[in-house]
């Protein structure tokens, strides 16, 4: 990853590396249900800050706005599934990671929401100049990727044409 060999890092260094470099989006969102939208987005900031830096707070609010979320919403569990995944995307982006890993980000959403989420994810990654590594079965999502590889029995196949 860049010029670092991740596997040779200590556990603490790997934690820090994940915190600062990677944004994660899960298939089933993995939000903390009893926290507000803003707290969920800011969660990765809590791991090393007692008080959230102002810049991070502003960025979290900006991300929520851009993703069409009300950052004051008290409980994420009350949100629709599409909105919950948007919270998860905002959480992945809040620390401006260089790499976004998304595992089936649209698989648990209906197709309209799925397309919207895929667009938001790719567009957000572009804006922050982050790479995005995404696993999906969804052809609407795959169509938007620069490169598509097929995984066959755990092995990476050759690159397919992006539009196919």
């Amino acid at each position: 990853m860049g010029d670092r060999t991740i596997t040779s890092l200590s556990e603490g260094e790997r934690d820090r590396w994940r915190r600062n470099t990677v944004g994660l989006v899960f298939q089933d969102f993995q939000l903390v249900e009893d926290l507000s939208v803003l707290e969920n987005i800011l969660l990765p900031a809590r791991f090393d800050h007692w008080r959230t830096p102002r810049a991070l707070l502003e960025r979290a609010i900006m991300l929520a706005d851009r993703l069409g979320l009300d950052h004051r919403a008290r409980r994420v569990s009350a949100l629709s599934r599409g909105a919950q995944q948007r919270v998860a995307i905002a959480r992945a982006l809040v620390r401006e990671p260089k790499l976004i890993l998304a595992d089936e980000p649209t698989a648990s959403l209906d197709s309209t929401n799925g397309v919207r989420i895929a667009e938001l994810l790719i567009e957000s990654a572009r804006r922050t100049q982050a790479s995005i590594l995404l696993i999906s079965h969804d052809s609407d999502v795959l169509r938007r990727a620069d490169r598509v590889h097929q995984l066959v029995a755990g092995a990476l196949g050759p690159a397919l044409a992006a539009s196919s």
Partner: protein
Amino acid sequence: MNPWPVVIADLRALRWVAWVAPLLVAVAVAVGVAVSAQEAALRRSSALAADDFDLLIGAPGSHTQLVLTTVYLQPDALALIDGAVLNALARDERVKAVAPIAFGDVVRGYPVVGTTAAFAGRWGRITPSEGRQFAGEGEAVIGSDVRLSVGDTITPAHAVAGHRNPFGVASEEEASHRHDAARYVVVGRLPRLGTPWDRAILVPIESVWEIHGLGNGHATGDARLGPPFDAEKTPGVPAIVVKPRAVADAYALRAQYRQGGTVAFFPAEVLVALYSTLGNVRDVLVVASALNNILIFAATTMLLLALAGLRRRRYAVLRALGASRSYILLTVWLGAAFILLAGCLAGLALGGLASWLVASVVEQRTGLALPVGLGVPELINVLGLMAIGSLMALLPAIASFRTPVGDILR
């Protein structure tokens, strides 16, 4: 790092369990606190009540019964001792003051106690807070809790052993034993002592003798109250309180009046025996409440361990998002410690409340004011439990700390 948002979310996710678990801990802690506070208060106040009763002399019989009847006014029929003993003591060089104590009558459930003005004023320690001390036959001073007023006229009734009227209530039972010719006028009220004597009506011993047809203890009908009782034959009394001049005199008097038809002893002797029994009971209760605490703490820790297990996935996600192991450790520890420590603190308050409630029941039943308060022993007890709780909270924290992340997320 700031684990609070996750801690709070974890606690919120528990819903009612977040209240019930500390409550269970609180009840267990409260029992220990209440037992300890109660026993200390009972010792203090019972010893205080016996303060003015240096040496008790009575007819041969149970020391404990004599103490219960004279100091704590628990009614019982006591055998009488020869009134001549009173005069012998009054003349004795070693005696600073002596007073008879006679029971037997009641007014509206309040015991009427015949004694001297000197003892009614607790050897000069207290003076009436309202009105004045009795100064002649037919006058009475009342304890602070007696629901009568200065100026009231009362008729005593003969108390019947085994029957007890509620305080302040004029019952028919009492009316049927009334000494119809006898009258007392309430002339004063004593300040509060915090002892059963707050519910007594104190009258001159002369009046008690007179009402029961024994004369007034003096050679003439209009003699001054109090010793010497110079009648041809001084009437008997159930108990005598003696205030010796010095410690050596106290022991000499006790030795002398232990024979010849009387018993003499220090109430403290009886109290020490009672305290030792009380202490044994307390020890049993302390052990029981300690076992109780262990059970509840262990059960709560098991619950918290199970919870940490159920939340493995959440913590694994946090690790994936970049949280360090120590962040998870701190989060789980804070959540578990919060439940146990909140329980301990609530238990301290609950224990204080419980002993206060018990104290008011005891005071209502016996008149013994129990100055319950949370003292150093109770605080140390709870602080110790809090320390144990903090350590036990580490168990689920360590369990979460050790869980491998990759396996759970797969």
